[in-house]
């Protein structure tokens, strides 16, 4: 027989991984997440996609610092939790003569085994996850993806370093605890009573009311454009969460004690007693988890808003392979056109003018003069029909007809509805033109020196004769996507000529949108995933740690004649309340915040799948999808462990 410290540690590690399977899976997922994002940091393929992607490694490393702190907290919490629950075992080690440093080493070794195993499995899984991220990034840039599994040594090294930090932090705390613990406290830990945080009814009610008010004020302040106010708002929200959970959790027993009729109704007694045993002492933890969920939901919503913003803008800016415009009635595009002739082979192109109407009938109808997002057209912008038809051909849109005596409107979707209601004819160049239809494809209509801001009148060529030129523009369909260097060279040339100008290429707009999306969405979702997993794991560890108590309780209830179905129902209700509680405040705070944020960009961008409501639904769906996985796993595990066998 040879029991060594390492053998004992290994056995304990196996048991730990089995007893806390959900925690172990989360640690594996943490390693996978860290590795896969580190893979993006060190990928030369990703870095070479666009200049904008140069920032990605830094953004991910910054996010990783937060993620390491979050997982560090999870591992420290779970390690401490297990340590406390194993007090009797640790006490026994000390009792039979192990020195505390031996117990520390034992604990260190078993955590090293668990962490090492999770790291190894996580890196393997992370390799696959990295492929998923790689595929996403390549898809964003419109590039083909080919599966190519491989390990990045620098990414493995950085992941191991992060893991070492996480575990060293947790084990340092555990070492302190073990060294200071006395055998008596360890042996009799499970006999100690838990304490409630707030006891007096009046104080509790006042704190709860104040917390609700703070929560409302904080949510409103969070939506303020002023950063200081938003920070104050965040502080109020945090204070509100802690205040409300501390007062509410410990107030539940008092609520039912005062209302015996409700207490004894149906399964209320069973459910509420099961819950209060935990909730009364879990106020701080619940508030922390609720805070984490709020941050998660806001991160997910913000990520989607940014994604929608970048894609929405890119849709407008990428309608032509190449578009150049410079302000001024005189044509100032010569140097740019020379450059294009020399460097960029084109299949079709058009040099054209955008005219000023003689009046501002539509501008006045739309009441856009004071709109902060609307650019400087004092009159309605006008396009000749022949130019418009050529532009449509260059952009690849189907041709449209303009009937005699009519005009067309080309608008962004957000003003189309309002203009559709206007049936009055317009007067132009001595002619009266009736509305002939509205088209809403992207056509460079976001800025001043574009094809009209948000809308343009398309009129017969003869009606535009004699109108003043607002500016000149050039659009082209190129033989190949315009290289990024050519785009930058053209911007330099345009800047030398005009005060206000615009250069857009489909290739640059799409690459820019893809890299900006990657820069914002990847770190935000990285954070959101880590936060959700951490908080849901802690909730689940807490819930599953009660398995023994629940099992005994249900065994007793069975003897008292309770039906198994009723027990399952009581367990479900208790479970639902337990998991819903920390998720309610994030929804109340996150929903208005996300909707507000999604409405901030200029009109016409957040539309379709990126409309505020769609973004809200997507953010909630992502959040609850991950949360539900944990809830389902915990419920299945608890149900299997605690409910008596069906007879």
């Amino acid at each position, binding site marked *: 027989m040879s029991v060594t410290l390492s053998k004992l540690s290994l056995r304990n590690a196996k048991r730990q991984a089995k007893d806390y399977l959900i925690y172990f899976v989360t640690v594996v997922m943490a390693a996978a997440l860290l590795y896969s994002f580190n893979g993006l940091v060190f990928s030369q393929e990703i870095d070479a996609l666009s200049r904008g992607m140069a920032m990605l490694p830094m953004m991910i490393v910054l996010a990783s610092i937060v993620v390491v702190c979050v997982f560090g907290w999870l591992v420290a919490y779970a390690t401490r939790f297990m340590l406390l629950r194993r007090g009797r075992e640790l006490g026994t080690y000390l009792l039979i003569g192990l020195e505390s440093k031996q117990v520390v080493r034992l604990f260190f070794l078993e955590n090293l085994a668990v962490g090492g195993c999770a790291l190894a499995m996580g890196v393997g899984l992370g390799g696959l996850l990295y492929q998923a991220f790689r595929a996403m990034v390549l898809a964003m840039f419109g590039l083909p993806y080919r599966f190519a599994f491989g390990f990045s040594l620098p990414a493995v090294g950085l992941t191991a370093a992060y893991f070492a930090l996480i575990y060293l932090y947790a084990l340092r705390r555990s070492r302190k605890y073990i060294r200071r613990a*006395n055998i*008596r406290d360890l042996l009799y830990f499970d006999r100690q009573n838990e304490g409630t945080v707030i006891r007096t009814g009046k104080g509790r009610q006042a704190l709860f009311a104040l917390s609700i008010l703070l929560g409302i004020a904080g949510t409103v302040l969070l939506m303020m454009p002023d950063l200081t106010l938003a920070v104050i708002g965040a502080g109020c929200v945090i204070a509100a969460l802690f205040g409300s959970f501390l007062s509410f959790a410990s107030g539940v027993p008092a609520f039912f004690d005062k209302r015996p009729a409700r207490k004894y109704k149906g399964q209320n007694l069973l459910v509420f007693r099961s819950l209060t045993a935990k909730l009364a002492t879990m106020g701080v933890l619940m508030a922390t988890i609720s805070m984490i969920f709020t941050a998660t939901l806001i991160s997910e919503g913000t990520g989607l808003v940014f994604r929608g913003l970048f894609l929405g803008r890119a849709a407008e800016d990428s309608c032509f392979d190449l578009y150049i415009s410079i302000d001024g009635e005189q044509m100032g595009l010569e140097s740019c056109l020379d450059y294009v002739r020399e460097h960029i082979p084109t299949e079709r192109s058009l040099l054209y003018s955008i005219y000023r109407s003689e009046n501002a009938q539509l501008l006045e109808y739309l009441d856009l003069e004071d709109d902060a997002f609307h650019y400087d057209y004092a009159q309605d912008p006008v396009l000749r029909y022949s130019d418009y038809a050529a532009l449509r051909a260059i952009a690849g849109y189907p041709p449209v007809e303009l009937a005699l005596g009519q005009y067309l409107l080309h608008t962004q979707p957000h003003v189309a509805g309002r203009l559709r209601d206007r049936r009055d004819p317009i007067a132009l160049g001595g002619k009266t033109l009736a509305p002939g239809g509205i088209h809403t494809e992207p056509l460079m209509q976001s800025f001043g020196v574009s094809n009209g801001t948000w809308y343009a009148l398309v009129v017969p060529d003869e009606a535009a004769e004699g109108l003043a030129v607002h500016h000149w523009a050039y659009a082209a369909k190129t033989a190949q996507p315009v290289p990024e260097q050519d785009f930058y060279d053209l911007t330099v040339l345009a800047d030398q000529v005009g005060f206000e100008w615009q250069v857009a290429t489909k290739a640059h707009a799409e690459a820019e949108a893809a890299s900006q999306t990657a820069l914002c969405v990847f770190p935000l979702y990285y954070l959101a995933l880590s936060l959700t997993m951490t908080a849901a794991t802690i909730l689940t560890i807490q819930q599953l740690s009660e398995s023994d108590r629940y099992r005994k309780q249900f065994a007793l209830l069975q003897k008292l004649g309770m039906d198994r179905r009723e027990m399952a129902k009581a367990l479900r209700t208790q479970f639902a309340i337990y998991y819903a509680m920390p998720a309610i405040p994030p929804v109340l705070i996150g929903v208005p915040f996300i909707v507000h944020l999604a409405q901030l960009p200029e009109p016409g961008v957040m539309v379709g799948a990126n409309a505020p409501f769609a973004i809200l639904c997507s953010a909630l769906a992502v959040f609850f999808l991950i949360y539900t996985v944990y809830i389902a796993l915990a419920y299945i595990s608890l149900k299997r462990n605690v409910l008596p066998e069906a007879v």
Partner: protein
Amino acid sequence: MLQVRNIEKYYGNKNNVTKALDRVSFDVGAGEFLAIMGASGSGKTTLLNCISTIDTISAGKILLDGTSVADLSQAELAKFRRERLGFVFQDFNLLDTLTVEENIGLALALDHADPAAVQRQVRDVAQKLGITDILEKFPYQVSGGQKQRTACARAIVAGQSLLLADEPTGALDSKASKNLLEIMDAMNRDMGTTILMVTHDAYSASYAKRVLFLKDGRVFNELLRGDRGRPVFYHEILDVLAALGGDVSDVI
């Protein structure tokens, strides 16, 4: 062997102090089997915890073979527990991840003793306690009585001079209790193990050679078995318990 001198133990804070032990003094000679009895809250487990270095004393002295346990450093205390003290608890305190054999030999193995010698010592003591056939099993595979015998084996395998038992029959049925007590009696009689057992069960206490009765943290009475038979001693214990104040209901 063991000298307990005027020990006191207080719990609580400055607003609410509980005196768990109040100037308790007694000696335990080598090879003695002493039982400590008392009602719940009388201080008997606190007394055992103080002697076993699990808990600290507020005043007084505890000397084991002339060494004051309060004066030992943490490392010395660990060595002291490893070499001199053996523990048996009501709920066994065995490690689930280890087999019965490994549970018994763990402290020796971790003390870097020769593995062959460890196995020899473990098998030797297991034979004496009648648990040789369960050595390969895990604690959850054996009965309560076998678990407690395993705990006894662990408590004496390293040649510990004092076995401290806290309600060792508390979680056992009457048959297993009787079996365990007979084994403890044999350990004391044949192997010369000194035993200090805390119990509220008169039947268990009747196996001891001497019984100390605690009440409200003080030694209330002392009963020596002498040459009397165990059944007679058992009834005398019951008499003292009755005089102690209606604790007969605690007795089997």
